[in-house]
């Protein structure tokens, strides 16, 4: 492992790779800071830009966008009481009251430190856990892969939205979209309607840009586009202690940050749960464990540390199922999967075997991104606060043009642009009817995997489904799938 790490260090630590990682962080923080623009949107918009790049700088840049985006969300949460990303919703609770008390700089710094610390620890866990997990996953045959993906899909569909049924329907549509194009075993076209472009199937990039950038812009257009540009400044207090995190405050928050790391890493490793829940869960636990729970919600620095450590610790952990099993745990990792695919790489256990140099370079890249987040975040706090002033009436037209060009660039295809726009409208309607988008995208990504595994399994058993029950690992995942459906159905029915 040490040898592979040294190779990873030599591959990653070049001027070009570090430049792209830092560029990604900067873009991520800027986009994350703007309300209505999410880390997901940032990564989706930047994937096409990685088209002509080599794998390591491309993935490092996107990882930077992801990490920067998660931290960037806290800037607007603290300064204008509006979370830049959903993951920063819990940061608002204490961050904004701190800013009102003249402690904006302290809150922003604590958000940064908690974010970077939790993220780094989560990445270390990923680095330690991923290689042995991938080695185990290498032994999986088609029946195990089928049952595992089915289990992951069930979890994603059941936890992604408010309604179990809607999550499952969205996932079913995701698999249905994945069947468009060439049949993976028989090689015959499905749902091509006689068009050559349809035989190639639906592209991941048009789908994710449509679902997460176009539909987001259309939703944001429903809100009033404000004419006024607010005067947003990070007001510094006359008391120097209000502008920095003191040693005693950091000591007090350490336990919360460690707890946030544990919660975020655990939840991040489970597909579908995401950073928002981790932030709120850690916030609630920090409040319960605090000697002064009454201070929470009124500008308690531990509240900011809890929210930010919880949501940032998810970043590293979501890569565990992606890198070891090829299963994206959330939307951003599905976007990263798309970026890997553009580079001709398929995340999963085989990637550890065939391209371990790239994997270890990415591990080093994660650490570079964390360090970069700390440096860029510290230096640029005042500048990033200014981007909140960019009016949405200028921003949205530019995003729409970028969506068009970015989608076209991947395959030089206007058909893809049309598909992207169609998915934008589908995403918009789904949001209006409260259908979650994550199960649709992740099921679309996992669709070919589950179908191929199912059909290969049946070929192995001469068409008998018993093979999925005869193999212990496969059977275990099927039992877990059934149990999770039963558990979530029971919980929802009881809740209602």
């Amino acid at each position: 492992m040490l040898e592979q790490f040294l190779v990873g260090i030599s591959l990653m630590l070049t001027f070009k790779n570090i430049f792209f990682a830092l560029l990604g962080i900067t873009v991520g923080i800027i986009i994350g800071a703007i309300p209505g623009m999410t880390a997901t949107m940032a990564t989706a918009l930047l994937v096409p830009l990685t088209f002509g790049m080599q794998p390591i700088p491309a993935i490092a840049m996107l990882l930077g966008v992801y990490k920067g985006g998660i931290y960037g969300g806290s800037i607007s949460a603290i300064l204008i009481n509006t979370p830049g990303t959903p993951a920063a919703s819990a940061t608002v609770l204490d961050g904004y009251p701190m800013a009102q008390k003249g402690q904006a700089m302290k809150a922003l710094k604590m958000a940064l430190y908690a974010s970077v610390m939790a993220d780094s620890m989560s990445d270390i866990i990923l680095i330690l856990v991923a290689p042995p997990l991938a080695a185990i996953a290498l032994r999986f045959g088609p029946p195990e892969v089928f049952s595992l993906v089915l289990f992951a899909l069930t979890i994603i569909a059941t936890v992604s939205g408010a309604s179990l049924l809607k999550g499952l329907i969205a996932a079913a549509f995701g698999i249905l979209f994945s069947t468009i194009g060439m049949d993976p075993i028989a090689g015959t076209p499905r749902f091509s309607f006689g068009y050559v472009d349809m035989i190639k199937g639906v592209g991941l990039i048009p789908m994710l840009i449509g679902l997460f950038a176009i539909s987001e812009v259309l939703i944001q257009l429903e809100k009033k586009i404000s004419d006024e540009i607010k005067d947003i400044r990070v007001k510094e207090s006359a008391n120097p202690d209000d502008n920095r995190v003191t040693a005693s405050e950091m000591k007090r928050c350490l336990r919360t940050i460690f707890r946030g790391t544990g919660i975020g890493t655990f939840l991040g490793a489970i597909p579908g749960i995401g950073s928002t829940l981790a932030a709120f869960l850690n916030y609630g636990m920090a409040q319960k464990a605090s000697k002064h729970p009454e201070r929470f919600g009124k500008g308690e620095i531990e509240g900011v540390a809890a929210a930010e450590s919880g949501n940032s610790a998810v970043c590293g952990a979501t890569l565990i199922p992606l890198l070891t099993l090829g299963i994206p745990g959330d939307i951003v990792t599905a976007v990263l999967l798309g970026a890997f695919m553009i580079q001709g790489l398929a995340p999963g256990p085989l990637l550890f075997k065939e391209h371990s140099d790239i994997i270890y370079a990415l591990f080093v890249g994660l650490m570079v991104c964390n360090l970069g987040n700390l440096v860029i975040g510290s230096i640029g706090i005042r500048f990033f606060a200014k981007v909140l002033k960019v009016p949405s009436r200028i921003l949205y037209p530019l995003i729409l043009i970028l969506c068009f060009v970015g989608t076209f660039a991947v395959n030089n295809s206007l058909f893809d642009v049309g598909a992207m726009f169609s998915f934008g409208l589908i995403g918009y309607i789904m949001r209006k009817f409260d259908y979650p988008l994550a199960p649709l995208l992740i099921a679309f990504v996992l669709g070919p995997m589950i179908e191929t595994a199912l059909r290969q399994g049946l070929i192995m058993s001469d068409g008998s489904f018993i093979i999925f029950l005869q193999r212990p690992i496969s059977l275990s995942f099927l039992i877990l799938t059934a149990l999770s459906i039963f558990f979530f159905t029971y919980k929802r029915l009881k809740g209602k």
Partner: protein
Amino acid sequence: MAEGKKKILNRDQKSGIFIFIFSIFLYFYLIPNEVKGKATGGMKPSFIPDLLAIILAFLSLLLIFEPFIRSLKTKEKIFINEQPIKIPSRTIVVSAIFFAYIFITPFLGYLLSSFLILAILLFYFGNRKWYIVIPLIFVFPLMLYWFFAKVMLVLLPQGRIFY
């Protein structure tokens, strides 16, 4: 129980009916006509689409009848007071502009169509400061053109009359 006027169908039920009709159309028309091929390893290419059509029909029926099942359980009539879904004119106009963008690009080319569409969008969103709008209309598409066409060597759509 939410207060409000009685509604025959709620939003979920309406979407459930749409999905149910779609699943029937999928199973009886789209799959037989658009998915062909012989069985390999005991499974036809239509197996997964067929299965998904059945699952969608089943889930949509559950969505349609969920309020009735719940009202039977609680022995209360459940009325849902919800805002009707409205699609603002701004969303429709922007969608139409984007749609037009896709169609005019093969004729005008990437640059001309982007200048035009960006100008329309910026103006429609209420940007009236010419010293911001005019440079933006030209600089942003040109910047993207430079990045994609010159740095990444990706050909952007060429029109019949311009790049």
